[in-house]
């Protein structure tokens, strides 16, 4: 038993398998480009008079440049995302890591997090708030891709566009999904900085 233990620990020590780390960082680059260019595209015809993205933080310099970035990075985002979701479902990682999500546990963990009492000792297990946020951002990812497709091809994919309530409403859905992802990313990055070993795990696997 003593001989077996190191081997068992070695495998369980791996927090993120290689495919998770690779797809995570490819996705990080793709989402960065999609958001930056998306802001520049938004500026060409803003949905809200009080929301405008300064050129310094947007990508592409002008509308055509931003569109070129957006419709190039979309391939990276979608292909990489499809690989990630397929492997996440096939390997059982999503089910194992993200489920179950119970409202009471989310509330308790959220309160504990605010009090700074949430433990990060075992990075292999996600707390309930993490589960909710990771599952939520996955779902938002699906929504932002589908609403984007419905705006790109409102005639060839007209039933998808209709599902979103038409072209004009799909624009709002796309915008709010972006807002949700940016909010997630803010928390995500802040927490990665607060708990640096989680960042290390996403780079080296453990």
């Amino acid at each position: 038993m003593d001989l077996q233990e190191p081997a068992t620990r070695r495998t369980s020590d791996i927090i993120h398998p290689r495919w998770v780390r690779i797809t995570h960082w490819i996705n990080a680059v793709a989402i960065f480009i999609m958001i930056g260019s998306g802001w520049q595209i938004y500026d060409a015809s803003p949905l809200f008079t009080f929301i405008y993205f300064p050129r310094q933080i947007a990508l592409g310099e002008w509308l055509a440049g931003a569109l070129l970035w957006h419709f190039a990075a979309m391939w990276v985002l979608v292909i990489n995302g499809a690989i990630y979701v397929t492997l996440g479902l096939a390997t059982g990682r999503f089910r194992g890591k993200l489920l179950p999500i119970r409202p009471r546990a989310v509330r308790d963990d959220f309160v504990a997090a605010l009090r700074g009492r949430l433990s990060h000792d075992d990075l292999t297990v996600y707390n309930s708030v993490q589960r909710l946020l990771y599952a939520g951002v996955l779902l938002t990812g699906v929504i932002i891709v589908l609403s984007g497709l419905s705006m790109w091809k409102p005639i060839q994919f007209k039933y998808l566009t209709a599902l979103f309530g038409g072209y004009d409403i799909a624009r709002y859905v796309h915008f709010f999904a972006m807002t949700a992802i940016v909010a997630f990313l803010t928390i995500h990055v802040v927490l990665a900085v607060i708990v640096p070993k989680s960042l290390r795990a996403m780079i080296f696997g453990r």
Partner: protein
Amino acid sequence: MPRKRKPVSGVDAKLLIKDAVKLLPQASRRLFLRGAASLGSLAMLTGCDIIDGPTAENALRVVSRFNDRVQALLFSETTLAPEYPESAITRPFPFNGYYSVDEAPDIDGETWRLEIGGLVDNKKPWTLAELNGLPEVSQITRHVCVEGWSAIGSWQGVRLSDFLKLIGADLTAKYVWFQCAEGYSNTIDMPTALHPQTQLTLKFDHQTLPTIYGFPIKIRIPTKLGFKNPKYVTAMWVQNNDAGGYWENQGYNWFSGL
């Protein structure tokens, strides 16, 4: 859509790379030059300039051409743009161009002719009266601008596929090119030209096409973004070479299908 570029003052990216390369030993210099074409190594040297600069755009245009092919595959000649009731028409329907309303070309409908050229049997120019004598089709469809906004308009005119057949155009040709009075131009793919809703438009909301919407004719293509719907058209060429277009040549996606 004004186009502005901010070159980094005092920094010539090409000279900078050349100078940097001189410092490298021969073998790595060759390797470096090979790699220099890649976005990554250029970005290292010139920072943000490359991300927002013309080099990045040129690389991205390769993907844009790939996207043209994908869109041509997605395009279906039988998939129709949704039609809307009269009550859905956007009033006033917006004017849009790279110039202001008062700079829109004011064309004399009496002397105007639609020039026909390229792979066409009958190249006789058409008068406005002759075009108005052809069978009329009507549509109330959504105009989607590349900027993101959209508006619903009512257009009447001649089905372009009927007109192409009437003049004996080679329908196996790859492109149809439109020249406009103010210098604007567009090239579209033949499958889109033959789409049942692609229209040689003479009227807006059953009235003679107003100057701001493209008098005397506009090409209404509900399956393409607004900038692929040329106004003030003066010539139409059926051809096998892609003659580009005003915005397409500056980096907007060529196919721009919806």
